């Protein structure tokens, strides 16, 4: 993560100063979220409607980017088929850290109405990429997606950037896990 890797070392074990820096960095990441302009299926139409004047996604500071390199999060808006799954994984890998995923709609949450007989449908996008926020609905209303966005911003605001590994290790120790 570019700058962060360099910051990691000298700030080891920092106190209040570190907290503030972390706050500012998190604030920037939460408030300026660029999403990948990418639609899959029915939900993509609602996703476009969210951008439209009535709902105005840009209020949250989101800007569409067409290149995955410049995007901060991707909205999986619709059914993920097996043919498409590998491409989505590739897109996710192409995005630059820190990156987030919103799974929009039942189809990408769990397969939706295609869960039983869909021989060509991936039952949940979380089988190939990690998901941060799940938005239920088929398709979710624009308000639901906006709530998903707010939740994602909350999540980003409370992220631990520095000493991430250390904290995770401490948590693991508490839980009695021994993961290297």
């Amino acid at each position, binding site marked *: 993560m570019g700058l962060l890797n360099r910051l990691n070392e000298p700030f080891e074990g920092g106190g209040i100063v570190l907290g503030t820096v972390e706050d500012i960095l998190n604030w920037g990441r939460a408030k300026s979220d660029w999403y990948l302009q990418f639609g899959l299926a029915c939900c993509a139409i609602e996703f476009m409607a969210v951008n439209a004047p009535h709902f105005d996604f840009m209020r949250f500071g989101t800007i569409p980017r067409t290149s995955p390199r410049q995007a901060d999060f991707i909205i999986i808006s619709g059914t993920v088929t097996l043919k498409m799954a590998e491409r989505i994984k590739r897109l996710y890998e192409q995005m630059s850290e820190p990156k987030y995923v919103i799974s929009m709609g039942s189809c990408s949450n769990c397969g939706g109405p295609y869960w039983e007989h869909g021989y060509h449908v991936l039952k949940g996008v979380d*089988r*190939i990429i990690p998901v941060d926020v799940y938005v239920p609905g088929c398709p979710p209303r624009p308000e639901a997606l906006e709530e998903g966005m707010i939740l994602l911003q909350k999540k980003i605001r409370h992220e631990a950037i520095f000493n991430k590994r250390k904290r995770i290790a401490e948590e693991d120790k508490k839980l009695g896990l021994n993961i290297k």
Partner: protein
Amino acid sequence: MQAQEIFDKLKEKFNDDILELKADAPSDPIILINGAELFNIAQFMRDKEELDFDYLVDLISLDLGDNLGAIYIFYSMKHKHRIALKAIVPKDNPILPTLENLWRTADWLEREAWDLMGIKFEGHHNLIRILNPYDWEGHPLRKDYVTPEFYHGMKVPY
């Protein structure tokens, strides 16, 4: 032109290859034909002045148990009449002549029928899968199709 008249016209020309006309309402009138002669019949239907079927509406593939079926729906923009042809082929050797040289729309429709039902169209220039991935196995719309467990390491069933 009514279905009966079209049937008579075809019967006149192709005699034994035109099997029967099914026209019991509410079903649509369907002419059963011999699959091997499909190309000639279709060409006649397209080029004959009184028939002039210039628009291939759809190609429907069916799984009839031991056999596979293909239904072609034709429409004439000029005479505004519609008719369906049905050809039946055995499941172990499902071969029909291609119509892509008569109606270009048959290109994709036949690829779809091959992909989903496994009917081979002889003479098609590029008979590859269209909806499923190119390395997919089996023809999903057949009644005896079994969904695979894994595809490229991804679990398929829920």
